[in-house]
């Protein structure tokens, strides 16, 4: 198995380290600070063997500079990280994300983020350099539906 880089509509998703999807578990040992969000170029040169030996497998989704304006409905780049997608746009559930970067997009609201924040594996969230004006009460806590 190697590092997995998939493509949706020409945009790369970096699922890393190798075999990231489905291989991380809630009890997986984490070494705090030992990893960061990685860009696509870095992903291409990833040393799979070294990384597998050094740290547990993780799933990063780097959506930096994707011109994303809202998380409701979730951007298509997130589709591989969701399950139980219903016809109702608010019924989505995320899974197995450990790090998410939405840096330098066009978000004005964090609505939808609570679904991500409460993933049991999520460690790091980066929403810097957007246009977010307010953090609403529901953005940071679990909510059955986004109103």
């Amino acid at each position, binding site marked *: 198995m190697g590092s997995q880089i998939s493509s949706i509509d020409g945009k790369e998703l970096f699922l890393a380290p190798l075999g990231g999807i489905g291989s991380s578990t809630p009890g997986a040992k984490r070494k705090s600070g030992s990893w960061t969000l990685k860009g696509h170029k870095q992903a291409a040169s990833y040393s799979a063997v070294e990384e597998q030996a050094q740290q547990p497998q993780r799933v990063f989704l780097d959506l930096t500079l994707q011109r994303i304006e809202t998380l409701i409905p979730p951007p298509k780049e997130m589709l591989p990280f969701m399950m139980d997608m219903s016809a109702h746009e608010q019924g989505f559930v995320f899974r197995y994300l450990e790090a998410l970067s939405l840096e330098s997009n066009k978000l004005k609201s964090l609505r939808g983020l609570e679904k991500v*924040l409460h993933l049991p594996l999520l*460690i*790091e969230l980066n929403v810097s*350099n957007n246009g977010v*004006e307010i*953090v*609403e*009460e529901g953005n940071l806590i679990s909510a059955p539906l986004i109103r």
Partner: protein
Amino acid sequence: MLASVERINLSRNKIDYIPPSLASLNNLTELNMSNNEVLYLPNEIGRLKRLIYLNFSSNKLHALPDSMNQLTSMKRLMLSNNYLEIFVNPKPGDLRNLVWLDLSWNKIKRFPLNLGNLGGTLEKLYLGHNEMKELDGAELKKMKVLRELSVQHNYLKALPKELASLVDTLVILDIEGNKFREREYKATNVSDLLMWLKGDLSLLLPSPQQYRFYNFLIGRSKSEPHRCVGLSTSQGQA
């Protein structure tokens, strides 16, 4: 389910309000909210017991909640470029792991009260670009592990005698841009700076021969305003 998220970066947005539910993120260790428009912090922030790094630099904070004293894991607290006039008043044991405190570019007029209670761990203290007229020597003397002290661009007229007690730990002292008395800061180059320091501070030393103190002092000369001038550390040489 408790949120597992440990690091959140919301810097460089336009956020002006932090909801109290922030405290529900009880695994949070790092929170970067710099370069926003936050006006105040919720008192609940003190419940984030695992928080190690908190950055609210470049916001619009005018005050801090007392509960910040309860952030017992906090190591780096970045609050520069706000409108703070006072810092929280730490009691012994408060913020007991704080290593790095940045309060530069605020409106602080008086050296923060009881800051010496952080003296067991505080290594870097940045108070530059405020409005202080004097430093509290008694509080500084309690800072047993202080390595960097930055008080540039205040209204200081003198340095306290107690500064000499930091001789064994202080590596950087930035005092540029204050209002030292005429006989004091007239340095235009490194040599002048040394002479000034020698003339002024040698009197404060327990032993005038221990010029090692000078070696720990770093300033910026007027001729090299953008260069931090470091002096080699060798005991007995000024």
